[in-house]
């Protein structure tokens, strides 16, 4: 009965657990990739276009580089970027959404107008444009993505902050003279925290896809192997016209799909538990 249980939050269902499991596996692979020597996937180790064989499970590319090494090193690049972008974007969105939610009216209006304007501009096109002109190093790419991706989460978080601000226990706490840090630590985390998870997950997901797309268009960092770059060489060499697509084109694409899918599963699982209508229908 409702009277006997303390509030408990089970944010992940079966789907979510699968998502977390897959993600943990990929993170482990990425960690292994970081431990590999620097030249892994970057140096010639075999003849060009080598098919898979013992010691070279996925063959080599047109420059004789180990495709498996590229796959493993690419995991680190992809996840690292996604993580940093997700952290930055969520922070940025929380600050902007929070300011728009509780700040003075003029600030709220101008921030949300700004968000609306950016919302209409297509994210990926902006990303490609900015990266083409500003450069493709890891830091620049992460910064551009964070600057492009904040509007949607900022809108979500603003709505969340507005709802939270009108909640009784927060208002009572304000009325008793609690300072801002107390409101945030004691009440804000409880009310807004669950909203940050889907925002974080969605941003990480989008960052992975967008960055892979950028690399695929040949705008990736040429010095570091990544899944998108591998597929760029697949495209420019017309690999999928031969049987090499099996070991050259399939694995990096599957890796992207699997990573994004694991994040999506976590996101769907969390959202289904946060949206009362979906929860209701689940019974």
């Amino acid at each position, binding site marked *: 009965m409702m009277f006997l249980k303390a*509030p408990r939050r089970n944010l992940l269902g079966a789907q979510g657990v699968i998502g977390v499991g897959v993600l943990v596996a990929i993170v482990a692979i990425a960690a292994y990739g970081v431990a590999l020597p620097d030249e892994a996937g970057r140096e010639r180790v075999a003849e060009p276009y080598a098919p898979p064989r013992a010691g070279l499970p996925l063959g080599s590319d047109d420059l004789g580089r180990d495709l498996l090494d590229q796959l493993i090193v690419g995991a680190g690049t992809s996840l690292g970027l996604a993580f940093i972008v997700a952290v930055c974007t969520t922070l940025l969105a929380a600050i902007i959404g929070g300011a728009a939610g509780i700040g003075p009216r003029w600030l709220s209006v101008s921030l949300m107008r700004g968000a609306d304007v950016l919302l209409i501009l297509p994210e990926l096109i902006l990303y490609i444009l900015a990266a083409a002109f500003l450069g493709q190093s890891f830091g620049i790419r992460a910064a551009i993505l964070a600057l492009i991706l904040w509007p949607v989460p900022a809108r979500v978080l603003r709505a969340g902050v507005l709802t939270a601000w009108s909640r009784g226990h927060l*208002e009572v706490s304000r*009325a008793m*003279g609690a300072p801002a840090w107390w409101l945030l630590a*004691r*009440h804000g985390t409880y009310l807004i925290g669950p909203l940050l998870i889907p925002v974080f997950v969605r941003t990480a997901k989008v960052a992975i896809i967008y960055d892979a797309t950028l690399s695929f268009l040949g705008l990736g960092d040429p010095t570091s192997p990544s899944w998108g770059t591998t597929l760029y060489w697949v495209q420019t060499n017309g690999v999928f016209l031969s049987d090499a697509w099996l070991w050259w084109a399939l694995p990096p694409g599957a890796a992207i799909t699997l990573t994004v899918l694991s994040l999506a599963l976590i996101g769907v699982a969390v959202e289904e538990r946060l949206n009362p209508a979906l929860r209701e229908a689940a019974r």
Partner: protein
Amino acid sequence: MTLKVRDLTVRYGGLAAVSHVNLDIADGEILALVGESGCGKTSLARTLLGLLPSTSQVGGSAVLGEHELVGRTDWTGVRGTRVATVPQGAMTGLSPVHRVGAQLAEMLTLHGGTAQPADLLDRVGLQRTMLRSYPHELSGGQRQRVAIALALAGEPDLLVADEPTTGLDAITQRQVLALLAGLRTSMLIVSHDLTGLLPYADRVAIMYAGRLAEVRPARALSPASAHPYTAGLLSATPVADREVAWGSIPGSAPALGHVTPGCAFAARCPLAVDRCREETPPLVARGEAQVACHRHDEPDHPSYPNVPRVDSPSGSTVVSASGIRHTYRARSRVVDALRDVDLEIGAGEIVGLVGESGSGKSTLARILLGLIKPTAGRVTLEGRELTAGRALRRLRRRIGFVHQDPYDSLHPGMRVAALVAEPLAVAGVPRGERLGRVRESLTAAGLPDDSGFLARFPGQLSGGQRQRVSIARALAGSPALLIADEATSMLDVSTRAGIATTLRSLAVERGLAVLLVTHDLGEAVQSCDRILVLQAGRVVEHGPADDLARSPSHAYTTRLLQAST
């Protein structure tokens, strides 16, 4: 006979929400089904409409004309046609994207009604031009009338109205009830407001913990002849007359599935004897009425604790607000929420702030709390002005706030001890001193202070207990002023006077200044020393509670008084 309910039982996961109810509604009769939250009245109403969730099990029978309603799977030709509903919260229940006319036309086509949409609007007292309106263009009362018109479209034999006036102002509530009563359709009105329904109902059925306690013609209902619970409900409704006492029933209604032998009300009943705790009383005929009580034939009358009448002399001024004006911008319009309001409360005094929704009473409360900065005017607390920043925060610690919604105002993840200690933590009181003051506040708010209770979460408390925890929290910081914003409006009727009693004793014993914000003039007259009546941001009347109730000087106060008696 329109409706015959026999031995109706509704269970959720094996727990009975409605047990063995027998009830009839005659042709053209209006039956009021009254009870507090969780008593099973809504489950009963939803059974008649086939709207129970699929997790429920229903037994017994409910026959409407030639249709058996229990266990029915195909509701075409019955729902909307034979039995129609004015649902709970109907104000937000109209389709937002269709015009009123189209919604009426849909009902008429679906249920084979012969009337014209315009005729339906006539019947519920709306202008025909509203056919072309969208719901968002209508007021709450108008939307409620449209909902009634929609229910009438299928010319039903029985109308089931579930809390049809929730969310409406007192005056509009009367109008809507009068409209329903004037339709002369067989009707089941479900409500928690016994006295509000009495003038409009033919018969009243009182429900407690899933069973009928009493069924009686409305005109024959009086505290002297009624079931102890009914008598308690009658005395628990505040009347805007200080001669009439305002009482509360101690304790709270049992939770669903909390089964005890004997009468479910025995634990709270002042007349209960051993037999009541062992044997469940059957509903038996007593003259025109049916009553389920072992002690009904005995001369004792139940007596409930009343709100004390104390003429407390008011001490020095604690809070003073002068020339308060507040305007805000909504789209392109400028709205005056408050215009030149003055207010003073002395130590030990309870002042009532009465007004309907939109009158500005909540805005004024929030200005006194320092949560909103007024456009003009000044507020001083114990001689110091409420300004901004750190000074304001420090001053706020002298004010206790009891929020309207006991379910929202307690952080669900904090235990009672932490909840009550929050003002102490905020004010930087050393940890060692907190527990003692928490215990003291809990006791003052009428709550247990044992460590078991201190370790509970809000989810484990009843609504009344939650609101008392809220009061204890407000007291913990030893405030000079307590502001209670509609503190009883979401509580069960039977427990409201208990809260008022607690506030009174705090004012007397601690010299606390109390501002009681309420929409219910009756409650204010019963529990306050002085009353301010607020209409559209202006104080239209101000005076001692007794005088104001006896001889109101403003027409608006008179209308509020009429609506609350």
